[in-house]
């Protein structure tokens, strides 16, 4: 019982690791651009596919993919931002949500045409095969790696934003883009960079997800809507909040599924509804984010 409960908590941390990376990317993009990137799940899917294609055609291993794939997807994101999203900044933010929705439909279907619905397996790198004895329980090595890698990336991102001068510029631009621009900082370039970085985070999560599930065109769908729920639960506008909420929600949902399996699919939304009733701005959100 205790052993399997521990296993379930770790399963929760694994899904939480993905929620955290994706909601962090959404939060950063939202912070500066004020848009919700519906195509975030698509970037995650593309990240996994770049790793898969790299392995198939160029023989690139997992470790190379972990670096290369986010770069490739960041470039895709930057091109999309420059050519499409940037045209709509003067309009209501909802137009960009709809635009990224259209982009999602397009890319997913194009990938389905090319690679089929089913998807393909991606092998676990041999350094991370097998299981790890954690002292109190035994858990697959790769999944432990996912949790650690996610934590490292999330914390590094948080430090980058909170503790460096680049981060300070970024936070200032979030508060008052006009003023930051007056100081001679190229805000549009900053926006493009942030969008690319957010997409890279999603792609990094995608590469990590590739060995866990099949690499499939619709894999982004399965995660983007729960991630939106995580964002609502955590509240918009907090970087640290999105990381903590991601892991927290992963564990709570896994525990709920452990004690009452039929609820597993909907618990995250029930949690969301509950948070909305008690604290409409989300656990870490500010009023400004929700209004």
């Amino acid at each position: 019982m205790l052993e399997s409960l521990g296993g379930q908590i770790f399963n929760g941390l694994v899904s939480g690791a993905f929620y955290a990376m994706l909601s962090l990317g959404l939060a950063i993009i939202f912070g500066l651009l004020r848009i919700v990137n519906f195509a975030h799940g698509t970037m995650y899917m593309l990240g996994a596919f770049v790793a898969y294609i790299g392995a198939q055609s160029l023989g690139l291993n997992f470790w190379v993919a972990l670096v290369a794939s986010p770069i490739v997807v960041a470039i895709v994101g930057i091109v999309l931002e420059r050519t499409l999203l940037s045209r709509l900044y003067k309009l209501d933010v909802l137009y960009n949500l709809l635009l990224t929705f259209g982009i999602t439909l397009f890319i997913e279907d194009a990938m389905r045409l090319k690679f089929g619905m089913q998807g393909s397996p991606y092998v676990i790198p041999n350094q991370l095969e097998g299981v790890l004895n954690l002292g109190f329980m035994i858990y697959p090595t790769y999944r432990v790696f996912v949790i650690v890698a996610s934590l490292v990336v999330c914390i590094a991102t948080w430090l980058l934003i909170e503790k460096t001068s680049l981060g300070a510029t970024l936070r200032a631009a979030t508060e008052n883009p006009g003023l930051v621009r007056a100081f001679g900082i190229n805000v549009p370039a900053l926006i493009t960079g942030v969008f690319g970085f957010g997409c890279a985070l999603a792609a990094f999560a995608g590469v990590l997800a590739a060995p866990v599930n099949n690499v499939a065109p619709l894999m982004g769908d399965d995660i983007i809507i729960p991630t939106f729920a995580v964002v609502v639960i955590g509240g918009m506008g907090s970087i640290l909040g999105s990381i903590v909420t991601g892991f927290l929600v992963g564990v709570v949902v896994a525990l709920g599924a452990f004690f009452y399996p039929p609820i597993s699919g909907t618990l995250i939304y029930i949690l969301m509804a509950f948070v909305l009733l008690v604290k409409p701005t989300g656990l870490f959100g500010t009023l400004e984010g929700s209004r």
Partner: protein
Amino acid sequence: MLSSGQANPSGKADYLGLGLLILGLALPWILYPVLATNIIVWALFAVGFNLLLGYTGLLSFGHAMFFGGASYITGIVILHAHLPTPLALLVGVAFSVVLAYIVGVLSIRTQGIYFAMITLAIAQVVYFAVTVFIGWTGGENGLQGVPRGTFFGIPLENDRMMYYAWLLIAIIVVAFVKRVIHSPFGQVLKAIRENEQRARSLGYNVDHYKLMAFILSAAVSGLAGGMLVVHQHFTVMDSVDWRTSGEVVMMTLLGGMGTVYGPVIGAAFYLLLSDRLAVLVNAPGVVIGSIFVLTILLFRRGIVGEIIGRLDARRARGSQEA
């Protein structure tokens, strides 16, 4: 908030409405009746949706829960409770109203992107419900073999009879929605769309008005969903999928949100286009995604919005010269 073309000012002759009525009467002789009926059903869904997006400025990204949810409820009460078709449609509407009340209480105080994400997430619960209650919904196979029955004596198994019965409902509902839009209630909604703070400071209970608009919009969407299942004899999980929520946004935008007839024209245009293109290419997402992106980038006012905008511009020039 989302600005858009003006609605037809009342008092002026409704040429567009008249034209659509004539076209509507002739439609099942131009297209095959099943496609024509599909257009009616989706047009009604889009009209309901537009009440919220176009006139209240709220973007729901979960309207499939009302449309698809009601299609399941209507189908189930016909199959298992053997209710007559008109009564079953009302049960579907009642379901949508109750669901909209619950969702509305949770979400109506939020705005913009938050509202879109919350409605999207709650709609996913309805989707899961369909997958969980397989005994009632048929799960992956969908709810099959729903008989059409009769509609106040009209035998619906005849495709053209079915079309005209549904056209009649659509005309009544569109006339009702038009009346609502031009009523004092509709004016308050538009005031909220344009400037919520101002509407609030004028003493209007903004949340109450928004909730009413949400429920009304859901009721029309639910009616359309019920009409879908009766017309098709079945409903599948696609009807509660988030893509369906996106499709109705698309239709509304394409036709012109915030215009009375825009959604009707948008739905017709969208269905005709996908019907033709489905024969040519096996990539609905690529096609729809492209239309979506192009519409938002180049054609935001939509077909009707664009026409009204040009007419207004010409009239403005004319009155300047005179």
